[in-house]
């Protein structure tokens, strides 16, 4: 187990270097450069532009630029954003909690709802309930979430007025950022409970949007993996032995439910960003996704390089944990990998 872990962990390093190289190269292949973007309509004489490029260090040969980036990155310095002139790390960590909070809440409710739905559907196979779970999860799985978000906003914010249109917290609450997670910070602040309720209200629609696809996957996978287990010999034996229906399902369902949960968590991390970019765009959510897309538009090279490196690290680590969890659940898979 330790060996497997070490081997997989060592593979992370070339993957990360490769990812940073691709991010570095691709963003520089994009025509247009950060200086011109900053100058906008006004242009600027070529000499001024050249000076500004020199100050940013983007006039050096590409290989040298990459080497500098890599060297600094090893020392934990990802450079400064060209747009804001602030360190990339600071910019990243001040936005990351917002994305994490949204993703976490979405994930939790999709598991809490998806798991029992999947179990119920499997237990009552071919019932009306089963068919509706299959149907709903199919639609959820196929949902263009940007559209779904817009529809929810029209209905629940604009027409019914139940939830706020966008943002994380009403501006009338002054919550000092301590952890960056508003659900925690709001409770720690002076306004306490009322700020917390407000933060929850802001979270409802975005987390529904971001949680839709994980919910669908969760319900589907729970259902199919449970059906598979229920058909297997040892369960039949257990049943034949006279173990109660409840006990069989409870013990085996719970154990097997870990697989869909782990899979969904793994899937979410990849989908997290895709979903987050769209969800954050619709709800003006101040997270990582929107920031990175804006940085591509502004050709903010250090932000793209640094941000991608962070996210690649995150994705790789989560995938690693998912893989290891599989191994832990299914020791017999060990021989295969």
């Amino acid at each position: 187990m330790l060996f497997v872990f070490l081997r997989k962990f060592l593979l992370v390093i070339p993957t990360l270097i490769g990812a940073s190289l691709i991010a570095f190269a691709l963003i520089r292949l994009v025509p247009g450069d950060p200086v011109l973007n900053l100058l906008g309509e006004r242009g600027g004489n070529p000499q001024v532009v050249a000076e500004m490029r020199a100050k940013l260090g983007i006039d050096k040969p590409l290989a040298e630029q990459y080497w500098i980036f890599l060297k600094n990155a090893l020392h934990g310095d990802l450079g400064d954003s060209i747009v804001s002139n602030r360190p990339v790390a600071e910019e990243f960590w001040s936005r990351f909690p917002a994305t994490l909070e949204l993703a976490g809440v979405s994930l939790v409710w999709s598991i809490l709802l998806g798991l029992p739905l999947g179990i119920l559907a499997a237990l009552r196979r071919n019932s009306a309930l089963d068919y509706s779970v299959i149907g709903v999860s199919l639609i959820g799985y196929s949902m263009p979430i940007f559209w779904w978000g817009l529809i929810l906003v029209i209905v629940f914010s604009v027409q019914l007025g139940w939830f706020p249109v966008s943002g994380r917290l009403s501006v009338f609450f002054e919550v000092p950022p301590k952890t960056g997670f508003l659900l925690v910070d709001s409770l720690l602040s002076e306004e306490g409970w009322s700020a917390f309720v407000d933060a929850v209200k802001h979270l409802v629609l975005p987390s529904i949007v971001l949680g839709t696809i994980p919910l669908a996957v969760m319900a589907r996978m729970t259902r199919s993996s449970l059906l598979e287990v229920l058909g297997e010999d040892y369960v039949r034996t257990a049943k034949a032995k006279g173990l109660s229906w409840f006990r069989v399902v409870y013990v085996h369902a719970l154990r097997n439910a870990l697989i869909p949960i782990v899979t969904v968590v793994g899937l979410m991390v990849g989908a997290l960003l895709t979903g987050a970019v769209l969800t954050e765009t619709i709800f003006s959510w101040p997270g990582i996704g929107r920031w990175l897309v804006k940085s591509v538009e502004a050709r903010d090279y250090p932000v793209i390089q640094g941000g991608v490196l962070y996210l690649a690290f995150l994705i790789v680590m989560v995938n690693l944990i998912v893989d290891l969890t599989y191994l832990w659940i299914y020791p017999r898979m060990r021989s295969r990998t």
Partner: protein
Amino acid sequence: MVLGSGWDDGGKVMKITFVFSILFVLILMTVQVQAAKTFVYCSEGSPSGFNPQLATDGPTFNASSHAIYNTLVEFKSGTTEVEAGLAESWSISKDGLTYIFKLRKGVQFHSNALFKPTRNFNADDVLFSFNRQRLSNHPYNKISGGNYEYFASMDMGKIIKDIVKKDDMTVEFHLSQREAPFLANMAMDFASIFSSEYADAMLKAKTPEKVDTDPIGTGPFVFKSYQKDTLIRYTANPDFFNGKPKIDKLVFSITPDASVRFQKLKVGECHLIAEPAPQDIDSMKSNNKIRVVETEGLNVGYLAFNTRRGPFVKKEVREALNMAFNRKAYLEAIYMNRAVLAQNPMPPTIWSYNEKIKGFDYNPEKAKQLLAKAGYPKGFETEMWTLPVSRPYNPSGKKMGEMMQADLAKIGVKVKLVSFDWPTYLEKSRKGEHQMIQMGWIGDNGDPDNFLNMLLSCNSVTSGSNLARWCNKKFSSLVEMAKQTSDIKKRTELYKKAQEIFKEEAPWATLAYARVFRAMSVDVVGYQLQPFGSELFEKVDLK
């Protein structure tokens, strides 16, 4: 017994006073809560930082220079006229090369957790603010990236030869050339005055970048906090030299999407919103809780013909295309009639606007004849680049492109629409790779030079802002002469003449002067629109 009852009475009294004092405190608290007026402005984008010297974008200026800082001279609210700011008065030498500013006395800088000012504003602060941008060996020059885009693109480094402190309250600017718009430049955002005492303190503390992230200025509002991409908080500056603002707290709620801003205004989450979408204005006007105000903008939207490529070398072709565009239809469909037809390369709000000039009328028949005369009886094929971003001067480049395409097809000119994303668009157009290109300009300082010289002179071909790549010797020398003259009458004459040449040569199709709009809750009083599209909140109040 007596004693006891006395005790008892005393206890009662104590209790009563206790209850009353609590009540009093409670009342006081509620009064305080009611008294704290918070004004919420929903802005269109995040500021790139809080140092206006390092930025070129409106959201940053609104969040920094207009709220926190002051300049030596300032634009009179609602106009493009210059009035006294941190300088009480000023004088210009006869040769136009020396500007002497007498500074205002008793102006206090803000304080924050890191810094308490020990002295009032003086000449050192002026020197610091400009020398940081001007001198590459200044200790602050390289801080926060050290790219002073505006300062550089206005060529201020070259124009300012030296800045001299005559005494604590007098500063002299020596210029290397006559520069009529100089005074107006001193009212621009990059000319904001920073505290040199704060800068020294931060340099000592080895955290010089704090000057840019935790700003200290003299302006109407004191910076409190910034949550990235979400909120900026300010409190009113009680010592502001023009009087304490009427609101107590100011919040910028960052909301990039125009339709979301409108929704937030409707549900009361904003008091004032930036850049309402043109298509929403009618429904805003019909809402009795919302007030819409508008004014003439300081901008122009245009289509530039690349006068160095293909058929556009010929004046007749440029004229013909000008006649082929049904510009009135664009105003209706693209600007929703929130704009005025543009006749000149600069808007009528700027002095020296030539009213005698009338733009081309829609006349496809005549356009065809002109094309034939120029040697293109069957028209030709060409490309048009459509603006990839929504700007006040052109809210939808794509849609306008589609309409122009249809108009040009009528005179036999086949147009392919092309677009790139914004930085690419800028880079390629600077190199002159385009045939026809949509662009626009929002004025910086209200001076005609800022339009005519910036966008159409021979010099600006190299700097890239002259997208027609049109170099007309006569036009350029007129504009250059006007720049070197300080007599307004003479300048007016020269600029009027320059506009005539522009009309004759038709390097652009001028499209629109867009009007500036703001929508706000009916509770907002005292808000005034600025021609530059900037936001000033010092006079704003809530009913």
